[in-house]
């Protein structure tokens, strides 16, 4: 066991996968000697050499397309896009190729690639460095979208993503890359994809979230407990496909739900989760509330805090799901 932060856990998972399987290679901008702009790939080039840790030109379409070609040849590429804001050039490759190569060749060619990118705001970054547009990616058939929220889940989910026989977009919550640490066993054990994680059990309300917002949501749950509200917290973790069975079971128990995400409200995955709950008979006993980013451009550093979902907004939303029971 070692103390790891999320950034360390991701690095350890890649190193483990590369040591276990020579088909695994890493490519991206500055991933070599520089170790990536967030140092996530730090040291990999020394351990595994420049043949397996490839610095690429600044060409995101090319990086994703090369990864598709490598994957179709049976390699296991892990391609890094420096920020989610630079990933949009890869969407043509994800939609038109990575997500459909297996379907269109009836399994003759497949695409076991991982596309990693840091996402999300709250670090006072430059323009284009704070977005949370995972819903765009989760709309793409044939790919998986995974977002970890702790060092242990970062490690286990990345190993699962690398070993998965299909393409996985793995978004890293950069605000909490170094926010905390925990004991993580570098034992090569993967965690299941397509599965929500119940981080806290509760009876009164279900808080559904993912990524960096898990931090605020868990803090809100702690404060709610002191007010006598017993909140269950679910980390969705795999956003495509979503494990609705776990979420529905939880809300069937609590009757109330708040979805928390950094992404913009409209078209965000909170809407999908709310719709799926509404489609179930007798599950919801109060209005769904969503605590999300706004339908705006993510503000730059000075105004960013007004955009990011806060603990107090989560608390307010929870109370709104149960107006008759808990006075405001």
């Amino acid at each position, binding site marked *: 066991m070692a103390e790891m932060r999320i950034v360390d856990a991701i690095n350890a998972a890649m190193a483990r996968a590369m040591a276990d399987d020579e088909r695994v290679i890493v490519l991206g901008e500055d991933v070599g000697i520089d170790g990536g702009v967030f140092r996530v790939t730090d040291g990999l080039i020394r351990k595994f050499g420049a043949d397996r840790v490839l610095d*690429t030109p600044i060409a995101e379409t090319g990086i994703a397309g090369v990864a598709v*070609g490598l994957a179709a040849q049976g390699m296991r590429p892990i391609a890094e896009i420096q920020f989610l804001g630079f990933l949009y050039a890869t969407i043509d490759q994800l939609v*038109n190729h990575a997500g459909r190569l297996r379907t269109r060749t*009836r399994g003759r060619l497949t695409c076991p690639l991982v596309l990693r990118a840091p996402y999300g705001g709250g670090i006072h970054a430059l323009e284009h460095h704070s977005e949370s547009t995972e819903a765009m990616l989760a709309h793409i058939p044939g790919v998986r979208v995974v977002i970890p929220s702790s060092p242990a889940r970062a490690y286990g989910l990345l190993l699962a993503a690398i070993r998965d026989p299909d393409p996985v977009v793995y978004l890293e919550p950069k605000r909490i890359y170094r926010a905390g640490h925990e004991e993580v066993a570098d034992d090569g054990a993967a965690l299941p994809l*397509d599965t929500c994680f119940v981080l806290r059990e509760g009876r009164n309300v279900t808080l559904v979230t993912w990524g960096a917002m898990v931090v605020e949501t868990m803090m809100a749950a702690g404060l709610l407990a002191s007010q006598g509200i017993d909140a269950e917290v679910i980390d969705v973790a795999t956003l495509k496909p979503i494990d609705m069975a776990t979420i529905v079971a939880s809300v069937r128990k609590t009757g109330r739900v708040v979805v928390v995400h950094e992404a913009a409200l409209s078209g965000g995955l909170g809407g999908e989760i709310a719709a799926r709950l509404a489609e179930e008979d007798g599950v919801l006993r109060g209005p769904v509330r969503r605590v999300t980013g706004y339908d705006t451009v993510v503000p730059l550093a000075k105004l960013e805090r007004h955009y990011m979902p806060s603990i107090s907004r989560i608390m307010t939303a929870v109370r709104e799901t149960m107006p008759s029971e808990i006075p405001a």
Partner: protein
Amino acid sequence: MQVATFAVTHHRFLDPSGRTVQPLPAFANDPETLRELYRAMVLTRTFDTKAIALQRSSRIGTYPSSLGQEAVAVGLAAAMTADDVLLPSFREHGAQLWRGVTPTEMFLYWGGDERGSDFAVPREDFPNSVPIGSQAPHAVGVALAMKLRRQPRAAVCVFGDGATSKGDVAEAMNMAGNWRAPVVFVISNNRWAISVPRAAQTAAATLAQKAIAAGIPGDQVDGNDVIAVRHVVGEALHAARAGGGPRVVEALTYRLSDHTTADSAKRYRDQDAVAEAWKEEPIGRLRAYLTGHGAWSDDDECQLIDESTARIDRAAEQYFAMEPAPPSAVFEYLYAALPKALEGQRDEVVQGHHHG
């Protein structure tokens, strides 16, 4: 002060009348090799003719003819080994046929059945790429995989003149140059990107010179001279497999057909120019050479037409006879194993609820 100079060379062996303009490469001294190329081009044209007829009678969907461009597809495929990997655009029917894709599979694909891209042979070739030029970076990935495994193989990526305007292609050439990836990019310059002529596509004098900015050699070849295509692509592949890095080959040809069966080229191009282009088409050119050298007769021609037509007709019959895939196939190949979350959607399709 001049710091660098570049040149693009044009290669041709047969002129439009089938006369040699320089000594032929060694492989072309064997008449049987040339007859094989000739038969493949005729088979390709026969396939095209049948496919258009099937589209007109609603037996397949929209279809892009390769009429006039047969020498590019056949020539580049003939230069490949079975171990190389082809990444075509969607007009390389002649290359697919040469490499072992069956006309039945091709009718299936153009008829709207994914099974048509599950080639029994060649297993590693990519399916057609409809989004223009987007397969170019795949070819670099394929070639990089070959290089990392130290395999003496190469990838061949084909796209049209229009694709050279895409960033994908520029990025792919640049990366291939960086990594000395064993890939040959063949630009099938048929002068038309649907309605936009080559001259309006780019101010560059040649498309081969797109290679130069990527630091790799670029050559131009008469794309209606199958000997030239086979030779130049062959040399590029030989170099690539031996660690010599990537190359670009611009093959000058002409799209004698509409862009697809959904297009009407009369809307935007002068029929006199098309009539001129017919004088340079590749099949008559090679037939003139073969006939002039006593290597082809009218009887050979009649027999070839009969055999090609019979083979393609047989393939069409096999295509008609195929049972449609079951509705579950919509979900079966989406992921290696269908996620639990999608089982309900699959069951709905399998149980036929979508028919209302």
